[in-house]
């Protein structure tokens, strides 16, 4: 009888303690995206060179969509990596799109010039695209397959090798089981 009472007490307290420990070890700031394996929200982006770029026009290509800002240090850290990855895959059926959020035109353009970014980039004026993609920490990158489905999401700085490999997976419509994480800055 007393043993049974002890076991019951442990069965109640154990899970509560485990829940408490789990709660403490989680990054309370991290938001797990529900967008993985879902269709990418269509958007039209006004590019810095004046052209309009529509996601619908990119159907049939694997797309790397990167949200960044010139004030974000991890964005600066990954900038050269992204350009290197772009140079690596630009002749394939893949495309990079950069979206500057919470930034000024001047700073964003200086950033592009400084890091010699040559892939299409535009500014998300009122963060509408950013909200459509559930963005909360930058840089944030989305990989979209030729059918327009999100196959992978990476919060924080990303390396060129990972960009290339995940784009190749996106080209084959392989959806990653979970999103990736690196150093990030919370949006303002």
């Amino acid at each position, binding site marked *: 009888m007393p*043993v049974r009472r002890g076991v019951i007490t442990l069965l109640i307290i154990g899970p509560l303690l485990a829940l408490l420990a789990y709660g403490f070890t989680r990054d309370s700031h991290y*938001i797990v995206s*529900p967008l993985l394996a879902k269709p990418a929200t269509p958007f039209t982006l006004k590019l810095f060179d004046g052209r309009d770029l529509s996601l619908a026009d990119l159907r049939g290509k694997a797309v790397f969509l990167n949200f960044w800002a010139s004030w974000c240090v991890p964005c600066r*850290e990954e900038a050269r990596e992204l350009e290197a990855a772009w140079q690596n895959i630009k002749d394939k059926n893949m495309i990079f799109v950069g979206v500057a959020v919470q930034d000024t035109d001047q700073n964003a353009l200086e950033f592009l010039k400084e890091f010699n970014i040559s892939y299409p980039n535009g500014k998300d004026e009122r963060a509408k695209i950013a*909200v459509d993609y559930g963005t909360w920490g930058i840089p944030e990158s989305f990989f979209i397959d030729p059918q327009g489905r999100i196959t992978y999401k990476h919060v924080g700085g990303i390396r060129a090798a990972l960009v290339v490999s995940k784009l190749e997976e996106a080209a084959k419509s392989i959806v990653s089981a979970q999103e990736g994480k690196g150093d990030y800055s919370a949006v303002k």
Partner: protein
Amino acid sequence: MKLTPARRVLALFLLLGGIVHRLDATSAADLEDQTRAIATELRCVVCQNLSVADSPSEMAQQMRAIVREQLEAGKSPDQIKDFFVSKYGEWVLLKPRTTGFSALLWILPYVVLGLGVIAGLCVIQRWVRKKQVISDRPMQPAISQQLSGEPFGDEFPQPDLDDDSHKARLLRERVRLQHELADLDFDFQAGKLSESDYVSLKQEIEAKAATVLQEISSLPSDAIAKPAPKPAPARTRPQQATAAQFQLWKIIAGGTFLLLFGLTLGVMLTKAARPRGSENDTITGDFLTGTTSGSAEVRAALDEGKQAFEKQEFPKAIEAFKKVLATEPNNPEAHSYMGFILVQAGHGDGALMAFDKALSQAPNFPMALWGKGMVLYQDKKDYAGAREIFQRLLNLVPPGEERNEVLKVLAEIPASGGTPSRPAATEKSATTVSSSSGQISGKITIDPKLNANTDPNAALFIIARPAASGGGPPLAVKKIDRPTFPIDYTLSQDNAMMGMPFTGKINITARLDKDSNPVTRTPGDISGDYKKNPVEVGAKNVDVTLDQVAR
């Protein structure tokens, strides 16, 4: 006053205009209220526990604008919330839904509360029943007689001290009360108690005794009977042992639980919470969030150090930063400031070590990059190295004054020329002036058997300690990155720490350090001593062979 048709039209126009204006104002106010109502239910994605309505962040403003737009487009509040849920998940709702899995969050507290109330009622009922059983029992004349005459006869068995049964507890209580009564009598006879105190205390004890005796008499007769002189039956002993074990187990389990609970709260909570740094600091938790934490003491010491540094009170600043490093040995900010202090004191090598230490923890720590770049540029005249460091810094600094400053320094650094003070080059030139009397010079070699196992990125530290101190802080340290053995070295006042005089009898040691950290000893570090330690300043050929591998 009679209105002309034209005036009537004008009055009607003004009247209608007023109504339309009021309607517009009302609907705008409604829209604002609705926006706020929905925003109150949405969680700000860059803050903690703040709603989109309450957050001052830019993102929250943008989210409020989207809410307003969608309301204007005729969407219902539920549709708008669904939109945000589809982008950020259920997390974005400050009030979880009452359907699906989230319903558990609403139901569970009530279930737990209900269970708690039921459990509480059960416990109270048991207490009440127990009390009633005792108080309902009529006073038996035999017990009254026992109390008035010989209260506790010898008709009851002596209690077993190891027995934890109810019967044994009652018997032990009976004996205790018997002794208490005897003590009271003794005290009264000895004149230690007044009569009134004696009577009231005796009545109190007798009342307790009556209850105990009643309970004993209510037990089955075989339970009260004296135990047989033979050993206890085989079944009783294991039961007693089990009860004792359970008692022990209860204490251990209780203790373990309390310990775990204390650890969980004490350790994790302190890591998971910190006070807000400012009004705009919306993040309060930082456990595994990638943001630097630091206890209040560390932050206070850091602030104190920075203030002292700004006032050029370097000894005070050093004390403060030492305090920080005692708690957080890898704090890059404290290492960087130490580096700047060493720069001020004219110890380029020591400063470089401090900046390298900071960069080993945070490779992109701007302050350490700046410091290292400046030392390489101005002190070491290593223009290529300085340029490389400033270029790294430039990649990290967003546009602004700081960036302009970096660009300015980069422009100042000569494109070519200079004498890069790469370790080997320095050492070679140093050997040519080793005749100077203020130096100790020699050669560092490595045991040929160990040479093949050396880490190519390891750093060599040549350390001079005062012979008198035994251990203690070094007098001078020289760091040589990626050395090629054998390598010549010199130690002089330039390498002395914090302006300490490079004189007297000195012990020379050297260590090839795998993690380039002079403070830590890691397995695989290779060290060696000068065999004829101590030496005097001015000594030459102080050769050290690295032959001891740390395990």
